[in-house]
């Protein structure tokens, strides 16, 4: 290994120290320094912190990758380095490791600073060290993946500006396609029960999805370790795949590519398709949502125009000539063929997927969820023996566990009608998530649309949501009282019409009395009178200093009928 392949070590050391300072400034907040001083990271601080990690890591990886491999865009520097008596494989290894050394030197210095200042300030404890270690591993894997993508982008192009553009497209490419699928096929998000089943595929989603629970002190260490392990495997796979790709591309890269915008002539068409296809599909979706009449026609026209314009723009970037770009109409036609093939497949799959309705004898039970209801119910809490909240259940999981509806005739009628009519043609469409439990033990999740102008539909809905077992499946407070020893620190009334907050009480006894009256009020809950209107107010029951709460919705008719009784209950 020739560590001295790159000259100018003084500059390298200075840049490494600069990175170290940046890493200390950003990472130190959530790593040992903060743990040492604060002892924990509250959950409400986690999100901006982890996004800072993500952004800084992304920027560092792109900058470092560009610094190491931008020499490929200068013929003079290519002649200099490639004329040395070193094989391409060794050269790649040397440059890659030299490039990584910037980051790792920075991390080591940052860790040393954190330990020096953070540990004497407080006692972080072994859990804090474990969380910091896990966070570090995830961040390093993210860095390596983004670095590899950057190296790949820089080997694809002979121009630094184009390489950075390609890099940005590649880094966010999966996110871009997830958005395309989301918009083109409704099933991707709407027909998955609260979209909880959609796996994290993009590196950024994997990273952020694991970092939040990893560094939060209110999540148990074993749960954090589970998130960490799963994300670690996925990120490691990504880092490996991208490394293999960038190494292979580097070894095959012709030296003379330093002159051209695209290093591999064969990549020309691929890069164009990679940009044109998703952009055209996105524009088509945007047009579809913007028009009411002739939306299908407008969508197609929009996709065609976008494909032509973006193809020409990309070609101008490659060939630096408008006339040459316009002449390449063959590639535009091919791009249109790819766009409409993908569009056709997505729409066909979506139609078939959304048209699924279980057969009459197939359905055992189901759970439903009106997405608007989820806004108003806070957390589903697990209390320990001392009445403290130690965990909470995700809204979707709570409904799936607790709601068992057996009026199969009602839901199958509604689902059947949903398939017959496009929701865009409904005057008042209501989306309803349905979790079907079939007799054979399988489950299916779909979104159905209900035309609320149809009184027959509202009757069916009332059959479903009217009975107590629907409400028991959504609101924890419908079945459970505030437990013994639970610390109700505040009961607040939030008037949504006036946007006013009022503290109305505290303590377990007051809360249970109020909840009892609320349950009576909820017998009025149906789609004809109550649910059709907006929520007028919320009762918030706060636990443990306000970290967790139950939210109980109140509609105008309920307030009119039961308002006095509620006031009396908390006096």
């Amino acid at each position, binding site marked *: 290994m020739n560590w*001295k392949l790159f000259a100018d070590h003084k500059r390298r050391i200075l840049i490494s120290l600069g990175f170290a300072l940046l890493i200390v400034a950003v990472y130190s907040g959530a790593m040992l320094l903060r743990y040492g001083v604060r002892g924990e990271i509250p959950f409400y601080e986690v999100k901006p912190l982890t996004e800072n990690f993500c952004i800084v890591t992304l920027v560092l990886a792109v900058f470092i990758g560009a610094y190491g491999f931008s020499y490929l865009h200068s013929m003079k520097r290519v*002649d200099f380095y490639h004329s040395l008596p*070193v094989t391409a494989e060794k050269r790649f290894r040397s440059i890659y490791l030299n490039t990584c050394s910037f980051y790792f030197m920075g991390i080591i210095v940052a860790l040393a600073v954190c330990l020096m200042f953070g540990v004497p300030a407080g006692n972080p404890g072994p859990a804090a060290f474990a969380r910091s270690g896990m966070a570090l591993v995830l961040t390093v894997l993210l860095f390596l993946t983004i670095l590899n993508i950057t190296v790949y982008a820089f080997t694809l192009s002979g121009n630094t500006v184009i390489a950075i553009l390609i890099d940005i497209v590649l880094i966010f490419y999966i996110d871009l396609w997830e958005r395309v699928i989301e918009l083109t096929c409704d099933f991707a998000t709407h027909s998955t029960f609260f979209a909880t089943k959609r796996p994290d595929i993009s590196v950024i989603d994997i990273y952020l999805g694991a970092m939040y629970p990893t560094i939060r002190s209110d999540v148990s260490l074993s749960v954090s370790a589970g998130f960490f392990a799963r994300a670690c495997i996925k990120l490691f796979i990504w880092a490996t795949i991208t490394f293999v790709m960038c190494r292979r591309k580097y070894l095959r890269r012709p*030296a003379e590519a330093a002159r051209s915008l695209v290093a591999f002539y064969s990549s020309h068409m691929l890069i164009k398709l990679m940009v044109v296809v998703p952009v055209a599909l996105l524009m088509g979706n945007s047009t579809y949502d913007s028009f009411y009449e002739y939306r299908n026609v407008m969508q197609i026209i929009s996709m065609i125009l976008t494909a032509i314009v973006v193809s020409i723009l990309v070609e101008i970037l490659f060939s630096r000539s408008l006339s040459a770009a316009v002449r390449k109409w063959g590639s535009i036609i091919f791009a249109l063929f790819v766009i409409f093939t993908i569009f056709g497949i997505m729409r066909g799959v979506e139609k078939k997927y959304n048209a699924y309705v279980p057969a009459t004898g197939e359905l055992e039970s189901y759970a439903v969820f009106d997405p608007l209801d989820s806004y108003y119910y806070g957390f589903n809490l697990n209390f320990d023996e001392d009445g403290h909240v130690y965990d909470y259940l995700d809204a979707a999981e709570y409904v799936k566990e607790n709601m068992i509806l057996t009026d199969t005739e009602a839901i199958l009628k509604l689902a059947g009608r949903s398939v017959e009519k496009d929701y865009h043609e409904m005057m008042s469409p209501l989306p309803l998530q349905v979790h079907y439990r079939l007799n054979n033990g399988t489950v299916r999740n779909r979104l159905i649309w209900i035309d609320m102008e149809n009184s027959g539909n509202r009757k069916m809905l009332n059959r479903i949501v009217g009975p107590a077992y629907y409400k028991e499946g959504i609101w924890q407070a419908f079945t459970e009282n505030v437990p013994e020893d639970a610390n109700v620190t505040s009961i607040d009334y939030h008037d949504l019409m006036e946007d006013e907050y009022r503290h109305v009480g505290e303590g377990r006894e007051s809360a249970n009395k109020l909840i009892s009256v609320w349950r009576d009020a909820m017998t009025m809950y149906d789609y004809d009178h109550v649910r059709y209107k907006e929520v007028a107010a919320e009762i918030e029951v706060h636990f443990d200093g306000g970290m967790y709460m139950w939210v109980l919705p109140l509609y105008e008719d309920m307030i009119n009928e039961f308002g006095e009784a509620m006031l009396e209950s908390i006096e």
Partner: protein
Amino acid sequence: MIEIVNITKHFEDICALNKVSASFPEGEISVILGTSGSGKSTLVRIIGGIVRPDGGAVIVDDMPVYDNETVGQRIFLIPEEPYSPRYMSTAELVKFYAGKYEGYDEERLKALCDSCSVPMKTPIRKLEKNKGLLAHLAIAVSMKVKYLICDDIFSSMDENSRKLAAQMISSAVRDWGITAVIALPDTDLLPNISGKTYELETVCRS
């Protein structure tokens, strides 16, 4: 010996080299002659192992040149516009190279720099252009290599510098047994150089 056999190279739709063949005997100076755009620099890069040809082969001492460390140790290439890292002086650059090759002759380098009035401790980029090119040439000639491949650095030199350059190359071949292959647009540029001449347009095509 360096042998090039049926070298072909295309850049997109342009044919830069079409079945070019030649052999460059050891211990001599060989000159590749060609006008601007004839493919001299491309051929020099192919011989130096930087660019891979689309067809044909370059054989050095019975070994292929491309991506070959053993052959690479025997060849030193000076491109048309030599590059030196910022802040690197002649003394530092030669040490950088020495780590990759089998070393260099310190006395030889000092003598060459003195004869050309090239300061060894000044960053090469800060030197005047002729001096910078001579510095690169002095480094190349001091390396313990068997073959010196030199693209046309002479067109951008003044007459005096070209004479010094020609002296350096001739003495390297005569006194130290280096084989030199240099690319020129015109032999009048280096009238003091004597060696076999290969005109690129008319070099053997099989």
